[in-house]
C-alpha cells in the first residue's frame, strides 16, 4: 500500500493489481446475505404469529411509536445518503469526504440513541421481552437490528479515523458502506413489518 498527498492529508492508494472485487467487500457481501436470511427468518415467524393472533396488537400492550420512529427512519435514510455522498467525495478529493462521513455517523448515532430512548419508554409502559409475543418479537427483531447498527457505527468510526489519518483506501470505505447500507436498507422493511 502506497501513500500520496492531497491537500494536507495523506491518502493511501491500493495496489494496481486488477481485482474484480476486494476481499473485504466480498466478505461483507456474504456476511450481509447470511444476516438477511436471519432477519427473513425472524420476519417470517413474526408475520405468522401476527396473522394467527385473534387480536393484534395485544390489547393490554402499549402502541409502538409510529410517528417518532418515522422521523428516526428519515434520519437513518439521510445517514445512508450522506455515506453515499462521502464515497462520491472520496473519489474526487478524499479530504472532502470527512464531513459527510462524520454527519453520516452522527445521524446513525442519533438513530441508535433515539431507539434506546424509545425502548426505555416502552419498557416503562409495560412492553417487555416476556409481556407478550409482540414484545418478544419487537425486542428480538429491532434489538438485533440495533446491534448491527452499533457494530456498523463502530466500523464507520474506524473508517472515519483512517480517513482522518490518511490511511483509508477505497476498498475499506466500500466495505463499511456495504454494511451500513444493509443496516439502512433493512430498517424501512422492519418499520413496515413490525411497526405498521
Amino acid at each position, binding site marked *: 500500500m*502506497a*501513500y*500520496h*498527498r492531497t491537500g494536507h492529508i495523506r491518502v493511501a*492508494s491500493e495496489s*494496481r493489481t*486488477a481485482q*474484480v*472485487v476486494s476481499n473485504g467487500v466480498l466478505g461483507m*457481501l*456474504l456476511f450481509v*446475505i447470511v444476516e*438477511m*436470511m436471519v432477519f*427473513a*427468518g425472524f420476519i*417470517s*415467524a413474526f*408475520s*405468522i404469529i*401476527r*396473522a*394467527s393472533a385473534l387480536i393484534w396488537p395485544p390489547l393490554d400492550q402499549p402502541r409502538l411509536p409510529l410517528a417518532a420512529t418515522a422521523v428516526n427512519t428519515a434520519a437513518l435514510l439521510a445517514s445512508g445518503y450522506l455515506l453515499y455522498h462521502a464515497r462520491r467525495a472520496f473519489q474526487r478529493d478524499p479530504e472532502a469526504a470527512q464531513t459527510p462521513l462524520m454527519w453520516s455517523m452522527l445521524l446513525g448515532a442519533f438513530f441508535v440513541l433515539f431507539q434506546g430512548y424509545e425502548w426505555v419508554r416502552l419498557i416503562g409502559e409495560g412492553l417487555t421481552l416476556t409481556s407478550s409475543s409482540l414484545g418478544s418479537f419487537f425486542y428480538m427483531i429491532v434489538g438485533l437490528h440495533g446491534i448491527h447498527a452499533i457494530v456498523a457505527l463502530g466500523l464507520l468510526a474506524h473508517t472515519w479515523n483512517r480517513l482522518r489519518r490518511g490511511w483509508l483506501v477505497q476498498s475499506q470505505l466500500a466495505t463499511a458502506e456495504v454494511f451500513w447500507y444493509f443496516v439502512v436498507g433493512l430498517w424501512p422493511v422492519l418499520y413496515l413489518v413490525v411497526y405498521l
Partner: protein
Amino acid sequence: MSTLQNTIRRLASAALVAAVLAAPSLAFACAVCFNRDDETQVAFRISTAVMTFLPFLLVGGLILWLRRRFRALAEEEKRRAAGSPSPTTGQSVGAQPSSS
C-alpha cells in the same frame, strides 16, 4: 411391460396428482400450523415462498454482479492493452499512481 400396464400406471399417477391438487389440505403435514383461518395460511405460504426464493435471489444477484465486474475488468484490460484512456477516470489505465 405391456401397453395396458403402462396406461394403468399413468392413469394411477395422474389420479394421485389430481387428488393431491384437489385436496391440498390433506397434504399439510403440520396440524398445529394449519388449524386456523385463511390469513394464517396466506402468511405461511408467503413466508415459505420468501424463505425458499430469497437465498436464490441473493446468491444469484451476487453472482450476476460479480459476472458484470469480471466483464468490466476484461474490457478495461483490453483498453489497457490498447493504451486508450479509461472511460471512468479519463486517465491512461496503465498509469501508475503517484506516491511519496
